[in-house]
């Protein structure tokens, strides 16, 4: 499976540009824009988690909304029923997501191609069906009244969207830093090599199953963080979040951005989310326009927007 070229320099440059744009629009933007930026940041974290396993180990998951749900529901339950502070609940959900990721990953990482896609789709739908009918999780009406972390003692009021938006951007930066570190690490390079040629890695004595399980668990943990931040942003969670089309849209974001380039996933998430929002304000047949957009990208833009940026980088040099 082809992925975007490994180009750490461009990755960093793109990240800085996106960060500046986010900060500017956050500070000068309106009340609504700040929420919108927080939403894009959370979706970017989710996109990065999907991008990590797609480019590291060639695992395309059509059920990753399950971990978004796990993070959201675990965070809601921890804060409401067990009174754990929202900030530490996000850390706990990372552990919960990662552990479940290891358990599931161990069994499914060696499947590849359509079978991996189908198993993840099946698991995602199974989780969606369970959440939909479980009264403990509020069934179809979901759970509301989830609080945001309160750092009032430090004089930071999280309910102000500007502050919360910065908070999510901090999480994004932290995760971006960790994922780039891992991508450049021996484990990361081996995972990238597995996507390109699994048999060769086995022939030189690699632990392919272990590497892929770790990658899957890490990605599950990061997706759970996105889920936890999501529920804190909206104060509400309902089963719609775990529908397979959410995973589908996640995949679309990383394909549009360019797989494997981490900051490409952030770019993809930003572009797709803005277009979807702006279009749906103008026309309600926006799905038609976006549908043709996807087909255009598949047929004409080889590496998504990242491929475009690379050409620009070549021309500028």
């Amino acid at each position: 499976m082809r992925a975007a070229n490994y180009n750490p320099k461009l990755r960093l440059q793109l990240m800085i540009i996106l960060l500046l744009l986010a900060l500017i629009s956050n500070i000068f933007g309106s009340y609504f824009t700040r929420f919108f930026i927080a939403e894009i940041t959370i979706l970017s974290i989710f996109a990065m988690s999907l991008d990590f396993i797609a480019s590291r180990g060639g695992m395309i998951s059509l059920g990753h909304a399950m971990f978004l749900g796990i993070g959201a529901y675990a965070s809601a339950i921890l804060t409401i029923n067990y009174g754990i502070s929202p900030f530490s609940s996000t850390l706990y959900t990372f552990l919960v997501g990662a552990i479940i990721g290891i358990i599931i990953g161990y069994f499914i990482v060696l499947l590849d191609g359509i079978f991996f896609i189908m198993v993840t789709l099946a698991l995602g739908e199974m989780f969606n069906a369970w959440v939909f009918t479980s009264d403990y999780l509020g069934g179809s009406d979901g759970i509301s009244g989830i609080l945001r972390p309160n750092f009032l003692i430090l004089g930071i009021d999280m309910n102000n969207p500007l502050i919360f938006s910065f908070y999510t951007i901090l999480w994004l930066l932290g995760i971006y830093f960790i994922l780039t570190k891992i991508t450049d690490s021996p484990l990361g390079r081996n995972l990238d090599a597995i996507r390109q040629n699994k048999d060769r890695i086995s022939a030189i004595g690699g632990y392919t199953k272990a590497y892929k399980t770790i990658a899957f668990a890490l990605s599950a943990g990061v997706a759970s963080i996105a889920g936890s931040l999501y529920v804190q942003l909206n104060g509400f969670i309902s089963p719609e979040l775990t529908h397979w089309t959410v995973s589908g849209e996640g995949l679309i974001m990383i394909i549009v951005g360019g797989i494997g380039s981490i900051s490409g996933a952030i770019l993809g998430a930003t572009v797709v989310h803005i277009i979807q929002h702006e279009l749906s304000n103008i026309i309600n047949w926006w799905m038609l326009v976006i549908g043709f957009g996807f087909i255009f990208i598949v047929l004409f833009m080889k590496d998504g927007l990242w491929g475009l940026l690379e050409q620009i980088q070549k021309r500028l040099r």
Partner: protein
Amino acid sequence: MILIQILNALQFSMTLFLLAVGLTIIFGLMKIVNLAHGSLYMVGAYIGLSIFNYTESFWLALIFAPVLTALIGAILYSLLFKHIQNADPMKQVLLTFGLIYIGLDSVRLLWGTMSHSISAPNLLSNSLLVLNEPYPSYRLFVILVGFVVMFTLYFVLEKTKIGAKVRASVDDPETAQLLQINTDKILFYTFALGCGLAGLAGITVAPILGVEPGMDMEVLVLTLIVVVLGGPGSLKGAIIGSLLIGFVDSFGKVYIPQLAQIIIYAVMALTLLFKPDGLYKR
């Protein structure tokens, strides 16, 4: 009572079979994950609806809806699918997602958002006494259609020369080309046939399940499960897969309603873990 449930399960299996067999052949031949197969099922039902409203005859709709859907399938093949034939699964997922979005909106724009329904032809609208239990004769008709398609496909694929060519192209396209089998032509017709079958499923089921926006998504996941469970590319796999899922779903709903939803997905996940390439690896 059990007999009625068996008939219900059989009818649901036949619907799944009509959908799954098209997808299986397409996947077997072209290694394409066509998530938009559900949209063709919906388009087939809607075309059938328009023909039915226009001509007041269910039989015309039953014949022309699959033909028109096959036509749409042929156009889609030459415009799009031809170019992404062995592209990596990521790109196929994105392309077919795009088609799902287009399908949803164009159906909504052309036929509106109301839920419609087609009434069964008066010949089939009564109910027959099956072991002194009334059972809608239209559902028996659906079971019949399913079996007819099953046997004709089995016969064509296994026994005839064309069938051999198709199987050859499925198993090993390169060698098939060496034997002067024009695999492109076969891909074209099989893709169109697959889409036509999806259209047929749409129109045959319309009198029971109705025609409404969103019907494609509901059936898509179950069809994909049948294809992958049965083993992509194998007709036998599609038959066994649709029967298994049809019965598990129908009986599950009645006897263990709480778990019904979850069993189907559990069955698939377990099968894949023990037989990673599906029950009938081609």
